């Protein structure tokens, strides 16, 4: 247990030092939500008449497209953290030539992987708060008082996402060139879950896939709780789906990662690029 905590502390500190070593990252936190949301915001404006979006309202229950987009962006930030900080961290260590030496340490590889992304999750939470503030002033974004309840939905979701991140890392170990894999899987998963549009817009086949993705319920429940939009199912049902998927993804993710890790050790191809 002590050794486990030492690893977590060391990896957390490394990630923190690297993050603050490039202060432009923090400044970018203020700029990025504007950059991603503005095209949707002005596009939304081209569909609105006197501030009302009657068409959009028929899908979601109210006209708050700004809240819809900003919450979508916030949850997507966590999804990206999972894919990029967990999946990409292995590739980054490979390029820097430290992966083999790190893995030679007498520490569980899963712990090494998860601990590296812990700081990223903290940084993302900080960035999400900043996003809310920036978007409040830029686009008039506001939320209801159900914040604590929404956090209750978010925590099991994040644990489940770590499981997905482990599976992505395993894929990176196999494919080596991580960028396209991470970029595509991140965007497809977030897109199909309704990050920036109501999933009811999609054809039935794709909507079926959306309903099978637990992330859909994270986006949906956050919007129902924080901006009073109509959820797809009752919030109780959505919470149960999120908790069940947390267990499934955590177990599945760590299983896949340990299998691939063992395979890499057998083949001795960890250092090959």
């Amino acid at each position, binding site marked *: 247990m002590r050794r486990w905590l030492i690893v977590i502390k060391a990896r957390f500190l490394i990630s923190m030092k690297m993050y603050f070593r*490039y202060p432009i990252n923090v400044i970018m936190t203020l700029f990025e939500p504007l*950059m991603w949301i503005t095209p949707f915001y002005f*596009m939304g404006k081209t569909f609105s008449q006197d501030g009302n979006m009657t068409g959009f309202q028929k899908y979601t229950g109210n006209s708050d497209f700004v809240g819809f987009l900003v919450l979508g962006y916030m949850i997507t930030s966590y999804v990206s953290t999972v894919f990029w900080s967990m999946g990409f961290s292995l590739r980054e260590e490979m390029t820097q030539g430290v992966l083999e030496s790190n893995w030679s340490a007498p520490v569980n590889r899963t712990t090494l992987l998860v601990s590296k992304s812990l700081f990223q999750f903290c940084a993302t939470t900080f960035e999400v708060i900043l996003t809310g503030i920036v978007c409040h002033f830029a686009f008039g974004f506001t939320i209801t008082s159900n914040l604590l309840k929404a956090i209750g939905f978010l925590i099991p979701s994040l644990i489940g996402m770590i499981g997905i991140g482990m599976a992505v890392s395993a894929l990176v170990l196999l494919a080596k060139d991580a960028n396209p894999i991470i970029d595509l899987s991140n965007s497809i998963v977030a897109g199909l879950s309704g990050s920036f549009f109501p999933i009811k817009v999609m054809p039935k086949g794709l909507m079926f896939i959306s309903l099978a993705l637990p992330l859909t319920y994270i986006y949906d429940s956050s919007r129902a709780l924080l901006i009073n939009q109509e959820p797809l199912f009752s919030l109780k049902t959505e919470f149960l789906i999120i908790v069940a998927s947390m267990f499934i993804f955590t177990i599945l993710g760590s299983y896949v990662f340990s299998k691939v890790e063992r395979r890499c050790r057998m083949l001795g191809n960890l250092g090959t690029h």
Partner: protein
Amino acid sequence: MNNLRVIYAVAKKDLSSLFRYPTWIISILIWPLIFPLMYIVSAIGFSGPDRSGLSTFKAATGTADIIGFIVIGTMVWMAVNLTMWNFGGYLRNEQMKGTLESNWLCPINKFAFLLGGGVISIVLSLIFSIVSVVEYRLIFGVHFTGNVFEWILIFLIIMPAVFGLGMVFASLVLWAKQVNAMVNVVRGLMMILCGITFPISIMPGWMQFLAKFMPFTYGIEAARQVMVKDKSIMEAGANILACLGEGAVLMIVGKIIFNMIENRVKLSGSLERF
């Protein structure tokens, strides 16, 4: 002649790396399809199940073709984005791999070395654009107006701006040491100001003023005139000239900044610093 040999050698080396990791083929087939789709599906969501919002969109943009309108904007954005990551981060990538110093020691023109790094971006941007047009034509049945020669001309008109920006960017990254943040600034400004998914007339006046300093605003508008609104090259002439003019300025600025940064890293000995 010597410079051409350098450009050729660098481009050849990059092509070898590109084919060594074939996962980019997946990206080049899927990205042109899914990136615009994100905006298209959102736009359909905004228009409502009965498409009641479409009339206001048509009044603002001059076309009811949501898909064509968005695909053109995002296609230009993807070309810029790709160039920023590949060409803009080129020197930084060499630095990360530990090969920048040894390349820098070669008795060659460093600017030719940088230009060689840009060749692959142009090739990839061209493939990206072709794949976009083909996929949207075949899968979504989008009818692009104009002809192939006009489309190629539009692509060539946008390239000086893309290449110029890549040069500025690649040089600045050597100084700032951070690719991600720098890429986000450039592509972010383009997303906010150039109207990739909306007509710039919807923005406040001060933003429209800033948009005029971005060559891509004119490039996207010219492409939409030719490929969506069925206008001729002559009718899009004003936008084409503005895009070319600002693109030429960017290329000159790129060369100046590269020279400055080259001198700076030589004097401070900071080429290997992370």
